[in-house]
């Protein structure tokens, strides 16, 4: 069942949700990009395709304090400093990003369960938003994601004059109750029309024909020594842009910070593109950028599927295509290894 909310009431809609739970919506970052901001009455919703950083931050934050040690006399006291999660709502998550949560879940919610992640996942409520204007960098359909039919607790479609909403889960139903007075039952014809329009665009996307044939479970031996890795990686700077804008990259480092009167143990995102990523006591097994570069793409296209029933660890959001300083990215890797170019 679909309900609609007129766009003239969009701010009331946000206010009604924010009155009960913390709400985050895409807003301008002041530099031409978008970022999820906590909603207050001054926050202007920004209608963009995607935020610069993905919403994985909500569940797997860029940095997070895990615990603290204090030294008192000859004792070390261990403090649990985790912040209790409260219910929060993220509005406007695109279908690709919604799918990325599933990919992260398989990592963080499999045994041993990451309780920090699990707690935030339980408290998070996702209002997804179907895509109406895909970009040339989009290729989510390659990974069987339908950008017109987003998952999430509530699915939303935005047309020129209204927001159409459909609850998919109990959490979603509960949230819909909060905005019942602002919405009305309606016919899904405008949504169907939008879907048809977008499907036409999808066929025209430059990356529409991207193929996955040569990737997936059990392809390690065929791909690992492919000579193409040399040329693909030759321009790579070894920065972490692709990993840090990626919605599915999930590597982190755990570090200690000496505060002068104790130690804070925190975790922060790490990147397999960094030279020190694999450094251990015995040395570093990945000495060149080629090896680090190969790791990133093999992980997404072969190793992760190996461990997760063939599911790829890429959702085709296109962020790395837009942001890589040398414009080398997963689409080019897929084409080259797939023998297309």
């Amino acid at each position: 069942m679909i309900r609609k909310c007129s766009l003239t009431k969009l701010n009331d809609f946000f206010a009604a949700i924010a009155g009960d739970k913390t709400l985050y919506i895409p807003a301008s970052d002041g530099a031409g990009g978008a970022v999820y901001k906590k909603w207050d009455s001054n926050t202007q919703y920004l209608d963009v395709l995607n935020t610069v950083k993905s919403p994985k931050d909500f569940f797997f934050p860029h940095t997070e304090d895990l615990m603290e040690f204090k030294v008192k006399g000859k004792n070390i006291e261990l403090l649990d400093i985790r912040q209790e999660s409260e219910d929060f709502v993220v509005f406007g998550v695109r279908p690709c990003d919604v799918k990325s949560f599933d990919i992260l879940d398989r990592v963080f919610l499999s045994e041993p369960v990451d309780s920090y992640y699990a707690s935030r996942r339980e408290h998070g409520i996702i209002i997804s938003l179907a895509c109406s204007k895909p970009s040339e960098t989009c290729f989510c359909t390659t990974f069987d994601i339908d950008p017109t039919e987003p998952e999430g607790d509530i699915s939303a479609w935005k047309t020129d004059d209204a927001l159409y909403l459909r609850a998919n889960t109990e959490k979603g139903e509960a949230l819909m109750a909060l905005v019942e007075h602002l919405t009305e039952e309606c016919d899904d014809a405008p949504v169907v029309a939008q879907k048809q329009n977008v499907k036409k665009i999808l066929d025209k996307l430059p990356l529409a024909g991207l193929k996955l044939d040569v990737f997936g479970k059990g392809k390690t031996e065929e791909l690992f020594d492919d000579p193409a890795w040399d040329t693909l990686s030759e321009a790579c700077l070894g920065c972490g842009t692709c990993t840090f804008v990626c919605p599915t990259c999930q590597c982190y480092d755990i570090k200690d910070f000496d505060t002068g009167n104790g130690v804070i143990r925190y975790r922060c995102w790490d990147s397999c593109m960094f030279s020190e990523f694999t450094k251990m006591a015995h040395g570093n097994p990945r000495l060149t950028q080629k090896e680090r570069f190969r790791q990133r793409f093999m992980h997404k296209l072969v190793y992760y599927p190996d461990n997760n029933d063939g599911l790829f660890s890429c959702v085709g959001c296109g962020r790395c295509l837009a942001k890589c300083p040398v414009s080398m990215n997963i689409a080019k890797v897929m084409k080259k290894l797939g023998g297309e170019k």
Partner: protein
Amino acid sequence: MQVNKYRPLIVAFCCNWCSYAGADLAGNNRLNYPADVKIIRVPCSCRVNPSFVLRAFQRGADGVIICGCHPGDCHYTSGNYYTRRRMALLFSMLDYLGIERERTRLEWVSAAEGAKFAATMNDFAEQVAALGENKRLEDLRCKR
């Protein structure tokens, strides 16, 4: 004496050959300067990397002063000339980022200038105290 008066933490990088000896002389002559000045001895003022200054602020300093031999008197001939350029640029950059320029200073103090050392520290401590706590270049983790 005022109770609970705000007392700034000052880090003073002093070169081994001139300024540290100047501090010694100030002590020997029983000249007063604030106990809030923590001296870090360095072989030469030129040893002070800009990141030392930033790290001092991170660790809770409210002001950072670098003291070296007078130009021309460097034990290593020219170290303090490099210091002068380096700190001029660093201080200007910190100011550019909106960090109070009164929190940083570079001063030449010779081994014979015990009085100048004490006067400089008194003056600098007063100047920093007037600004209050360093909020713009602090690391909140170090205040827990």
